[in-house]
């Protein structure tokens, strides 16, 4: 377990305020935010390289806030991996074992071989670290961080320095490794995909604050602001005006109309006035005739562009505002979607999330 308790940190121009977050033992949590939101500074503060102005860092119940970095037992892997260039791969991995309990050349060698086996880098042990590929460097850096059995693993943008193809492989490996070792992990990233694929918990940072936290699927589905919606890529974010059309129910929510330019949608709202409508692309249903049943919004729209992205097809629509819908390849070919085609758009009132 690692718990951040009201952290306040200032390094250079970065100012982190009131950061509170908890990762349960064995959990995998991510802190995501755009470049410059202070993510790396936060990792440095946790690891003891940036002084805390306020708050505490607890690792498995122990307050480590005033301990020097070497006594916090936190493994760290930086974005550029930062392998020791004057040591071989094996020496890099063994670096932290000098201080491990039960140190000894045999115990060290065993641990290094075990980790190298786990990460598939046994063949590299005798080599220098120059000339390793990005993926190999990452594996060595992870093995090095795990060797002294830290209580928490901190990862700083571990996939930013590799291509997307390698990223997919490394992501899978990291997940498997996490499940095998069960080590509490905290990763900072700017890529929400990492959170969806790896995390149990996610916190979104902006300008030194945590603006939303929760399970990745929940943050993705119910972002609490237009910023979060745009940043996690929930989909369509449209600014407009909410006007009440029905009486509030027991929960205070009421039927309303959301107006943005010439786009008008039936929605369920809990307040009137200016708001953003967040609509997931897969909730926009396309059909050749108006959809029947409980779907309140039915609009005839024109297809502007069709993008085939593997399993999904993204369809950009002119509907007063530009909207993006996601459909399956099969649906796209059934409807003959291509620029200029007119189709019916269906959208449930409850699928419009107002923030």
């Amino acid at each position, binding site marked *: 377990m690692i718990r951040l308790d009201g952290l306040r940190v200032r390094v250079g121009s970065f100012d982190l305020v009131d950061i509170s977050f908890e990762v349960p033992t064995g959990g995998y949590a991510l802190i995501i935010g755009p470049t410059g939101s202070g993510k790396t500074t936060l990792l440095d503060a946790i690891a003891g390289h940036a002084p805390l102005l306020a708050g505490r860092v607890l690792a498995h119940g122990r307050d480590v806030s005033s301990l020097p970095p*070497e006594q916090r037992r936190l493994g760290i892997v930086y974005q550029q991996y930062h392998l020791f260039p004057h040591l071989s791969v094996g020496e890099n991995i063994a670096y932290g074992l000098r201080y491990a309990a039960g140190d000894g050349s045999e115990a060290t060698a065993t641990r290094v071989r075990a980790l190298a086996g786990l990460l598939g880098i046994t063949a590299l042990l005798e080599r220098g670290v120059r000339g390793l590929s990005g993926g190999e460097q990452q594996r060595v850096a992870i093995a090095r961080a795990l060797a002294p059995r830290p209580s928490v693993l901190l990862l700083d943008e571990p996939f930013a320095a590799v291509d997307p193809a390698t990223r997919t492989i490394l992501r899978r490996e990291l997940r498997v490794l996490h499940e095998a070792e069960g080590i509490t992990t905290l990763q900072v990233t700017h890529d929400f995909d990492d959170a969806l694929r790896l995390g149990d918990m996610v916190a979104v940072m902006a300008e030194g604050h945590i603006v939303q936290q929760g399970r990745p699927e929940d943050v993705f589905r119910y972002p609490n602001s237009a910023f979060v919606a745009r940043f996690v890529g929930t989909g369509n974010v449209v600014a407009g005006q909410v006007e009440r059309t029905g009486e509030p129910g027991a929960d205070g929510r009421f039927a309303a109309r959301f107006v943005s330019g010439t786009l008008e949608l039936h929605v369920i709202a809990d307040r009137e006035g200016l708001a953003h409508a967040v609509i997931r692309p897969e909730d926009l249903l396309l059909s050749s005739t108006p959809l029947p049943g409980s779907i309140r919004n039915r609009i005839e729209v024109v297809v502007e562009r069709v993008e085939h992205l593997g399993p999904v097809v993204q369809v950009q629509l002119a509907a007063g505002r530009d909207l993006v819908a996601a459909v399956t390849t099969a649906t796209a070919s059934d409807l003959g979607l291509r620029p200029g085609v007119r189709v019916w758009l269906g959208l449930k009132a409850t699928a419009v999330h107002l923030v």
Partner: protein
Amino acid sequence: MLALLGSMLILFIVGPLVRLLFMASPSGLGSALADPELQASIALTVMCATAATAIAAALGVPLAYLLARARFPGRRLLLGIVDLPVVIPHPVAGIALLLFLGRHSAVGGALASLGLEFVSHVPGIVAGMLFVSAPILVSGAREAFVTVDPKLERVARSLGDSAWGCFRRVTLPLAGRGILAGGILAWARSVSEFGSIVILTYNPKVASILIFDRFTAYGLPAAVPAAVLLLMVALAVFALVRLVEPREHR
């Protein structure tokens, strides 16, 4: 066009040195090597330069590390002060050291009462050399430390190293070549010093003063063999720096 202008400058640097090297006949060089006064003076020069470099390293490497890593008020001022001796005219430096370390000053008086005399003594040579060469060692070591990514040190700390352990196991091994190159250059600069030593300690004579002395007393031909010998030492040291220096720097 660029190359032409540039090669004129190269020629201006190489020409005189080559010409001097060609002036020395093997016999002249041989007799220079056998000259006991020149032998003694080269030995003195090497000894003093080594002492000056050792002191510069002992005091300068820690300073270089602080200047490379720590951020504190007055850091820029310190950076300036360290480089200051480069622009001080050498006889002015000699006079300043004479005043500072002479028997009549507070510092010099105190040291003299401990038996450490500078003016017209060997320690004066070392002081002059230290004054002009320390900046070279400090700036070389500082650059070497700057090239060691602080994140490597953070990784080492997170793996259990104390600040000192991390310095010894990571920082020093990675900065070592750069520091060594700075030390060799500082040593060579010490050997080359003349203007401040001529004021502080004319006797016993280091090599550059001996050459000057012979030139003024007996003219050019008397000075050339010793000059060639000293030039060869300088070139050898210089070649050594180039071999030691980390390649990435260039």
